[in-house]
């Protein structure tokens, strides 16, 4: 048995065809308008790619929240207003948090680690399995997201997600970005900046922010392309999935935790 059995199997896949297809997918969907239309559908998305992330917890810095702030800005989460008179605790419990920082201590060794936690983009996502209407879905390129047009707000997906990655919108939304539509009563979560990817960009907002801070803890890319930086990094070092025991084959992996 290999230790690295966590990793997607790249050998068996013919990568030339896939890269061509991936390049095709990236060129098919230019322009912001199309991106918004695409965000809720599978059109123009290819199964030749699987988007994923590798997070090096050694590089993730205690007290830094650049990724969280960038995500909030990119997806208009910072536009959501706190209801008047709400306590800090309730606000933290009710406001959407697509990505959050977690600080851990090993109970045996006392080792401290920091990491960002978000939707892990499971290959076998429980949130998709349980959703009664199919609003929660996985795109061909591995991104898991919610179609806000058919989400009925039952919150079953939130019960099912092992990572608490999903947020329910608890109040009216006064202001929002065209690239990140949201509505009261629906559920949402990290979609690996699908709007950017569909527009042909190749980084996520959190990754950019982390790089800008000089930490470079987040690596985003195509897991299926053996030449991509992320695939090479996954091959070179031992990484793990959070709660690998659930066998969800997550698209987000961590090293040094």
């Amino acid at each position, binding site marked *: 048995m290999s230790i690295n059995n966590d990793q997607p199997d790249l050998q068996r896949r013919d990568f030339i065809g896939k890269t061509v297809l991936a390049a095709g997918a990236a060129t098919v969907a230019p322009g912001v308008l199309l991106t918004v239309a695409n965000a809720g559908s599978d059109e123009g998305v290819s199964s030749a790619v699987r988007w994923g992330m590798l997070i090096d917890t050694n590089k993730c810095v205690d007290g830094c929240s650049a990724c*969280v702030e960038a995500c909030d800005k990119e997806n208009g989460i910072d536009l959501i207003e706190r*209801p008047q008179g*709400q306590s800090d*605790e*309730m606000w*933290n*419990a*009710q406001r*959407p*948090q697509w990505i*959050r*920082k*977690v*600080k*851990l*201590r*090993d*109970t*045996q060794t006392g080792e*401290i*680690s920091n990491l960002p*936690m978000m939707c892990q983009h499971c290959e076998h996502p*429980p949130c*998709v*399995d*349980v*959703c*009664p*209407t*199919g609003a929660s879905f996985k795109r061909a390129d591995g991104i898991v997201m919610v179609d806000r047009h*058919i*989400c*009925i*707000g*039952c*919150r*079953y997906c*939130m*019960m*099912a*997600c*092992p*990572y*608490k990655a*999903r*947020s*329910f*919108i*608890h*109040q*009216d939304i006064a202001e929002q970005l065209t690239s990140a539509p949201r509505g*009261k*009563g*629906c*559920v949402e979560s990290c979609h690996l900046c699908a709007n950017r990817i569909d527009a042909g960009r190749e980084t996520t907002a959190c990754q950019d922010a982390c790089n800008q801070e000089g930490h470079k803890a987040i690596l985003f890319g195509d897991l299926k392309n053996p030449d991509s930086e992320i695939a090479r990094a996954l091959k070179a070092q031992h990484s793990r999935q*959070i*709660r690998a025991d*659930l066998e969800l084959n997550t698209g987000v992996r961590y090293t040094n*935790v």
Partner: protein
Amino acid sequence: MIKTQYRELYCSSPRYWGGLASLAFIILVGLGAAFYMEHNGHFVTGMSNQIVWGLPHVFAIFLIVAASGALNVASIGSVFGGPMYKPLGRFSGLLSIGLLAGGLVVLLLDLGRPDRLIVAMTTYNFKSIFAWNIILYTGFFTIVGLYLWAMMDRKFEQFKRPIGFAAFFWRLALTTGTGSIFGFLVAREAYDAAIMAPMFIIMSFSYGLAFFIITLMAAYWWADRSIGDLRLAKLKNLLGVFVGAVLYFALVYHLTNLYVTQHHGVERFILLDGGIYTNMFWIGQVVIGGIIPLFLLYSPAFATSRFAITVASLLVLIGGFFQIYVIVIGGQAFPMNLFPGKEVLESSFFDGVVAGYSPSLAEALLGIAGVAVSMILVAIGARMLRVLPESLEDPAEGECV
């Protein structure tokens, strides 16, 4: 054998209309509460991204579970035969429909987007147990409706048994489906137990029968009709068996969980140091919902006391409510263990800590309105249909072997 005469519930106007009016008032208040929550969004409730299912779900699941159990009396009567239960079959069918409708109303009004009911009814993900449940609920209304009809219309007499069987199995499937909603939540330790589905079935027997006894006695009191002691004693003994079984299943559930090492945390939480959930378990579920009713039902001192039967049934319902509360809310409050072997020092999202929940008044009002919906449907149904026998005096000697 004396033929059982069924007659619509017809009672002195003030008592009946007064009762209806108060139920309608409770429902109106509940609807107002639902509107308030939907209009403002769920931020006005105690629910959050931590406790995503709150008090309304507790009420809804409680009513839905009880609905399937309320059909028990009809099943015993027409599937297994038995002169003691047979005359009660029609009412049992009506009650189960009412309870299910009440539960579903609460479930629907607590959705983030209740206006998308049509979407829920037309867009199915067949992998989802939730979607299957929607089908199970719709089927339940249809089958029990037909069953009621077959029981009431002499022309359909020959269909009574087959439909009775169908209803019997359908409702077992329904409770299994409800229990499985939790069974699929593999990541949450409290729900990771195979015993969940059978436990829900036995819980449904107990709550359903308790509802049945209370509504039956209330209806006969409203209508000034009489129920025989022997018949009540039968129901009461049956309730005793069910209450005992629920306690037994709870015991097995926690023992098996204690056997699985990685579930020790959640067991400690429910049984020892979970604060309100521990209290609800021991005081609510075990003492109020189990031990006291058992005492009231079996103690010779209360052998013929109707008051004791009523109180026992009420306590079974209260205890059952706590039991579902501990399962639904307690199971969510207990933190998911994302990082085994690690302790969470900081997180803006309550990782590793027990999630807090204090239900708001609006949530409670919506839930109570659900119970009122059930009761008003039963009251109107009993008034319009011939579901209740003229008299439930005990059958003559020799008839009830």
